[in-house]
């Protein structure tokens, strides 16, 4: 009887290892494939083999000398950083106001924010296009930054407000007794306590522009203003797929920093997601 249980457990463990191992192959395959592809001599998908005869860095060099990749990279970095700063600032101030003050119109505004976040961002696409056109901000990075910042507010505000709500009020009351102003309380008490959610929001707003394809393609028209998402997409969906290896090199260069950033901040991300979910 006992022996049976033992055998069964051993079998289970063996099976689990097998599953984990196979899954690891599936997870890693595309990643390894693209890295190998980027160092494979030749231009197209067809000529790239999984075990290349020789490895070369030609495509990386080509990427920087023959394409506008460095420019796209700089554009994306600029847009992402600006959006991160602007949106985080707008979100945190609003969330703080909603969480810590009771004022006429508060509930209505919160409700409106909640409903706004449910609209697909697309719905305003044509209007945004025309607005930017009228303001002369089409094919302009600031236009895109404004669009991103505006779009991230409703969701972010709710998330951060939920987090602030969970922080004890006694701390601020103590600070208030000591004569601290609202601004001091915000920066000296609330701010240090909310690093996890701030990191989450900032990271979200930084990564957003790296991933977005829709608005970037809508707003940015000229080749030298493009972001990475648009540039790489066009590189690999063009006729005949002749630039595959260049794309692979470009993809590796985007993915590595973002992936590292993500892995280092993983803990915050998971905390952020759960915090937002539990507290609404």
């Amino acid at each position: 009887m006992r022996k049976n249980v033992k055998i069964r457990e051993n079998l289970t463990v063996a099976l689990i290892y097998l599953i984990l191992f196979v899954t690891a192959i599936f997870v890693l395959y595309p990643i390894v494939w693209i890295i190998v592809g980027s160092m494979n001599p030749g231009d197209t998908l067809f000529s790239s083999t999984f075990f290349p005869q020789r490895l070369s860095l030609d495509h990386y060099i080509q990427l920087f000398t023959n394409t506008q990749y460095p420019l796209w990279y700089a554009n994306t970095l600029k847009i992402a950083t600006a959006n991160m700063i602007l949106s985080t600032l707008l979100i945190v101030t609003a969330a703080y106001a909603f969480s810590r003050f009771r004022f006429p119109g508060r509930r209505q505004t919160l409700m409106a924010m909640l409903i706004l976040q449910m609209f697909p961002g697309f719905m305003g696409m044509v209007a945004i296009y025309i607005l930017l056109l009228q303001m002369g901000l089409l094919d302009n990075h600031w236009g895109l930054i404004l669009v991103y910042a505006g779009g991230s507010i409703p969701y972010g505000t709710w998330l951060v407000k939920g987090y602030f709500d969970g922080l004890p009020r006694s701390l601020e009351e103590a600070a208030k007794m000591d004569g601290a102003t609202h601004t001091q309380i915000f920066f000296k008490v609330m701010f240090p306590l909310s690093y996890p959610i701030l990191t989450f929001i900032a990271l979200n707003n930084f990564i957003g522009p790296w991933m977005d394809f829709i608005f970037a393609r809508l707003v940015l028209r000229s080749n030298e203003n493009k972001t990475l998402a648009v540039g790489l997409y066009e590189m690999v969906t063009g006729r005949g797929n002749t630039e595959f290896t260049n794309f692979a090199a470009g993809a590796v260069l985007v993915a590595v920093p973002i992936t590292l950033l993500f892995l280092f901040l993983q803990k915050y991300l998971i905390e952020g997601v759960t915090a937002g979910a539990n507290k609404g």
Partner: protein
Amino acid sequence: MEKRDRGLHSRHRVVASVLSTIGMGLGQVYNGQIVKGILYLLLEIYVLIFWTHPFLQAMWGLITLGDTPQKRARGRIVVEGDHSIFLMIGGLIFLLLFLLFLFVYYQNIRDAYLNGKLRDQGFAVPSFKQTLKNVWEKGYPYILLTPTLLFTLFLTVLPLLFGILIAFTNYSAPYHLPPKTLVDWVGFKSFIDLFQLKTWSTTFYGVITWNIIWAVVSTFTTYFAGLFYATIINHKRIRLKKLWRSIFILPWAIPQFIAILIFRNIFNGQFGPINKMLMDMGFQGIPWLSDPFWAKVTIIVVNIWFGFPYWMALMSGVLTGIDREMYEAADVDGATGMQKFWKLTVPMVLYATMPLLIMSFAFNFNNFNMIYLLTSGGPANPNYSFAGSTDILISWIYKLTLDQSQFNMASVVSILIFIVVATFSIWNFSRTRAFKEEDMM
């Protein structure tokens, strides 16, 4: 004596608010707050003089959407004509500004009333200096909120209002595209067309069916795959837990658009490594992206690759939070591993992650990147208007808007999407704790 006093004085608040209703700032002047009153008055005069005409013009534009079509002779523009869409947006902006002005006007009346009340009760009204200080103290949340609300108003609310209004016009190619032609209000016609005109309704029902299947299947596969891997890694005899988790979390960390484009190549029917391998082994290649059925399978498989790490990471946290004793009790009762999983783990995890699960459903429902970057909505479907076999509503809208200029139909469809997503979100929020605590409803 006292009664008469109160009766006499109580007139201040009435008089002040009536005066402020007639003209901004008059009530304040009556209350003795001269500087504030004059500032209010100047604001009103400025608005009346400089903004009345543009405002009336804008309202005319919003209501009529223009009446002079562009006239061309020998390829040249003879009469510039009205641009309906610019008129509509201009009208909306003025309408929002007017609402802001009404809000300020309301504040002015309220202020006159409150200060009048102070006088009625025998208190002195605050001086201008005190008022400024008060604004900083009591108005702090408003100061914090103003930039954010302005941003939201003009970059989110305004485009959305515009998007909604478009659904009630005939703004579409080829006959109603400004500046060459005018756009008209047509009421619910586009809605009726979507459901009743065969060219539209076939596409709509086809696309929405796949959209729902996609949202349900993609949410559940990733959810349970995540739970599955979190559970097996959590098994007490599995070593290197951290290493396995780190490997499996990679797909979540890689920028999605890059990973999708990589998969687009991996599943390429002609050159993709998978088909190459199959053909090397003597099999026929599978039309991963060019056959409607296989394209849908491919999308779901690729989505599992992306989606499960997120849930796995979350579930690992949830699982460690579950009380060990329950499992021990189950062991004593002789429960098998499977029984423990389905009767204990699943219900508890489900309870803890329900809100996220619903949000994830809403997200997948509108997962544009997954569809557009992997298949571009293809393969083509001859029965559909402007949509491919794997298009979901949101990618269909994208094509309708950017490629086909069918703005009115795109807008109708996005309103329908909103109704679906909003229903789920409201239901979701109404059952979370924060909502009840906040006495939000």
